[in-house]
């Protein structure tokens, strides 16, 4: 077959050469198509040649400059390379169990020949908090991240704790338009210096891929692709779109919007909602698309701008570029995937949140900016949204288990390709990559691990898929492939930010505060809507929002604070003593196993921004969905029947992460805060005095 192709190719080449040889040079011009091909390939080669020549000729000088500047970066290093594989939420107890079952041979090898420890996590054990501590080596009082959300003391409303995105500084008002004169302003709220900045300064190259809370990307001497907390094109943390012909007008609680599909003859029309109009008009931007169902083949043809593709029912499209046209030559570029859910009797299409297009990023998502472009050109479009796996869509039953898993593993496979490219490019230095699949899949499929989880009571035990065991097995295979690519001079660390526990019962702490006289509602109200809509602040002493924090309504801090600073210690102690050990009367189990005073937990310049208390929920419990959103209900406890059935926002002592290594680590009780100083020490760098972690002793 190959020989026949070669033969055909040679024949065709001969015809071409013959024809071109006959004619004069002017006649041999073969049109713009071939002209472009020849010109652009010549141009590419020319640019590549210039670049390479420059790189080649200047390399000795740059190397000399680097040696002089950094006094030989690796001179005191104990290792040539550090590879850190982060698996968000990998649980040490599950890992141990599956290793003992014999399904994780590579982790078993690390446990046998290297190290396996539980890795102490942060207070609270939430990903943005723990990964911020991982990268900076400091407690949250020094990096300022305590949860996904923080609260505005003036409005009692939440805001994203990691980054603030605002419009451009200057605008020009032209009639009904407000023209932006500049780029959006993005301010990172995480403080502290990631350890790769110190490495980069010392001349040690770093490739950092999708470590959470690295948006906006900060400049350093290496490459970085931002992870968790990168927004979608709407500026949210992920808003899916569910287009349907069903007349249901109900809104999703969060994470998605329902969009009608209009029938027009044999075709159906709908749209993807985009960002708000940057020209100041009171409307959102939209991209319209057409669906042409073919019920005989159980498929539909979808047309979006110039893109046309066909999907079978239950199938995802590849990433499709979408352009939200603003007018005046402006547009916002995004990518999304379509999933055909149903074509008969109704038509339903799920569209992922519109991710920032990595090839044309409207917001910076990497350092340098070209790194995201490079990855996109090399591997094709990929998910850039921080929380790329759409857990909300599964929670809201827009996606089923299989569709959600397909989405997770598609993203995961992209990430694997990036990791192996980074490994190839970083033969010396640091290569760190975080995989989120472990977290998302355990959140959504924990229900099948337990005999009596409220979210899986209707699924017979013999029909429960072994999703989590399969997940660990896949991660083990990945670790095995990485192990095959490294030598003895490379340190491999497999870490997770926290472990996992069941989330079977919800605790509405706001309801408890209300029933115990700490939170008051407005007259004639027995409940409050989202974000304390019906709370009477003039009589409220404490409230909770987010996953683990409890706040006092402190006078002089909160706008309508009533607790005097001098009483705060007593109020906190009172709350601590009452909440700690709180029992769920329906089950007889302890719902709260620890309440931690933040004054004793955090130190640092941002400790004042912390909640006043951190609640440590017991195994099986977590803050209720309502409580997280600042809602006050009449019930304190209720079953969690959502697919989101496992969690880690509990007592930090219950959910340590994992630490595996290919080398022996002396430390018996390592903590995630120790990773940064350990890496600095292994590369022979001084550990800054403000760092809280302690370096481990490794047998290298």
């Amino acid at each position, binding site marked *: 077959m190959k020989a026949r192709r070669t033969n055909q190719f040679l024949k065709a080449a001969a015809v071409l050469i013959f*024809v071109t040889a006959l004619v004069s040079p002017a006649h041999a011009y073969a049109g*713009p198509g071939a*002209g472009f091909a020849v010109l652009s390939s010549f141009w*590419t080669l020319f640019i590549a040649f210039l*670049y390479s020549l420059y790189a080649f000729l200047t390399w000795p000088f740059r190397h000399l400059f680097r040696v002089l500047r950094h006094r030989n970066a690796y001179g005191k290093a104990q290792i040539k390379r550090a590879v850190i594989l982060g698996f968000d939420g990998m649980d040490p107890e599950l890992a141990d169990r599956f290793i003992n079952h014999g399904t994780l041979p590579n982790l078993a090898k690390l446990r046998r020949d290297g190290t396996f420890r539980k890795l102490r996590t942060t207070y609270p054990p939430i990903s943005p908090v723990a990964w911020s501590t991982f990268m900076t080596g400091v407690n949250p009082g020094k990096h300022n991240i305590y949860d996904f959300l923080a609260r505005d003391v003036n409005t009692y409303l939440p805001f994203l704790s990691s980054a603030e995105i605002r419009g451009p500084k200057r605008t020009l008002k032209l009639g009904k338009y407000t023209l932006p004169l500049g780029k959006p302003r993005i301010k990172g709220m995480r403080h502290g210096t990631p350890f790769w900045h110190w490495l980069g300064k010392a001349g040690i190259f770093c490739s950092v891929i999708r470590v959470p809370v690295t948006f906006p990307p900060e400049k350093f001497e290496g490459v970085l692709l931002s992870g968790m907390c990168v927004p979608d094109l709407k500026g949210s943390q992920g808003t899916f779109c569910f287009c349907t012909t069903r007349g249901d007008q109900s809104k999703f609680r969060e994470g998605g919007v329902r969009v009608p599909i209009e029938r027009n003859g044999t075709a159906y029309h709908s749209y993807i909602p985009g960002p708000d109009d940057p020209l100041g008009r009171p409307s959102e931007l939209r991209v319209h698309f057409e669906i042409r169902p073919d019920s005989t083949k159980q498929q539909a043809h979808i047309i979006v701008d110039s893109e046309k593709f066909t999907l079978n029912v239950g199938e995802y499209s590849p990433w499709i570029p979408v352009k939200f046209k603003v007018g005046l030559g402006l547009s916002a570029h995004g990518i999304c995937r379509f999933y055909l859910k149903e074509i008969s009797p109704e038509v339903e299409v799920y569209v992922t949140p519109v991710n920032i297009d990595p090839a044309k990023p409207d917001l910076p998502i990497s350092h340098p900016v*070209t790194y995201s472009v490079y990855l996109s050109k090399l591997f094709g479009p990929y998910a850039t949204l921080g929380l790329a796996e759409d857990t909300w869509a599964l929670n809201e039953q827009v996606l089923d288990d299989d569709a959600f898993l397909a989405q997770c593993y598609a993203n995961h496979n992209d990430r694997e390709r990036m990791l192996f490219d980074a490994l190839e490019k970083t033969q010396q230095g640091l290569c760190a990559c975080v995989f989120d699949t472990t977290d998302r899949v355990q959140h959504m499929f924990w229900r099948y691990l337990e005999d009596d989880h409220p979210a899986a009571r209707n699924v017979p035990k013999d029909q429960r898929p072994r999703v989590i065991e399969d997940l660990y097995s896949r991660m083990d295979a990945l670790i095995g492939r990485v192990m095959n690519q490294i030598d003895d001079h490379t340190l491999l660390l497999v870490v997770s930010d926290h472990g996992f526990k069941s989330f079977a019962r919800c605790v509405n702490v706001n309801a408890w505060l209300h029933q115990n006289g700490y939170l008051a509602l407005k007259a004639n109200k027995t409940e409050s809507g989202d974000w304390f809509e019906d709370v009477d602040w003039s009589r409220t002493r404490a409230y909770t929002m987010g996953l683990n924090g409890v706040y006092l309504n402190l006078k002089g801090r909160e706008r309508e604070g009533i607790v005097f600073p001098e009483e705060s210690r007593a109020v906190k102690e009172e709350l601590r003593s009452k909440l700690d050990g709180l029992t769920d009367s329906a089950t007889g189990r302890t719902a709260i196993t620890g309440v931690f005073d933040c004054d004793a937990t955090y130190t640092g310049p941002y400790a004042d921004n912390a909640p006043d208390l951190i609640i440590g929920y017991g195994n099986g419990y977590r803050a209720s969905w309502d409580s997280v959103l600042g809602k006050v209900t009449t019930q304190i406890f209720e079953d969690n029947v959502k697919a989101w059935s496992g969690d880690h926002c509990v007592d930090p002592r219950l959910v340590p992460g994992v630490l595996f290594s290919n080398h022996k680590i002396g430390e018996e009780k390592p903590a995630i805060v120790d990773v940064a100083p350990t890496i600095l020490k292994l590369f022979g760098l001084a550990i800054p005095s403000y760092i809280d972690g302690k370096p481990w002793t490794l047998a290298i």
Partner: protein
Amino acid sequence: MVVLLSVIIGLLMVVIFRYTSDQTAIRLAKDHLKAHLLAVRLFQDQLPVVLNSYARIIAGTGKYLRLAFKPLLFIILPLTLVIVELDRYLGATPLQTGQAFLVTAHAADADSLNNLSLQLPPQMSTTAPPVHIPADNEVVWRVVAATDGNYDIGIAAAGQTFSKRTVVSSRLARLSPVRLRGQFWKRIFISAEPALSDPGPVTSIALNYPSRNIYFAWMEWNWIWLFFVLSLAAGFLFKTILGIEI
């Protein structure tokens, strides 16, 4: 006219390229090339990575050219024929009345030169005696036309007469600068007249039509160069508008 033709042909060619090429493969090949170029910049302090990327750029360029080769096959034949035909109209200007021009007859051998004679229509006349160039087997006449028209100039030899079409005009016209004996491919690409009878004493009859220059963008252009530039520009514009990967 050249501008219009360039735009139309530019459009046609990119459309043909679109439907005869593997657009997905071309896009991928280009993307990979860009990625390797970016790698040279991103990892510039790591010489092995730079050299590796350079090797991949060369391999990627080869792949890209191979992908462009198939549509090139579809394009080159019709486009070459179109350009040849256009060159007959646009490559030279017709002769002008009162303007002397040369008629060159090429004989099969030097012995035949003395037997060649020029037969002109009444509207034409010679302005000088013929010049014999035995070394090249050629006889050259200087001729002038009195009025516009399409004429047949005859070259008589050994009882036969060989004609050559001659255009005297101030308008655009299809021109054939030479009439040839045999030489099939050369006739296809250069001559626009039937072959001279073979065997025969005359192997070619040529006229020196003045070459045409086109004034465009403050410059004088040969039409083919102007066509090259404009069709590329048009192609670039249309490929962007139509979303065609080239």
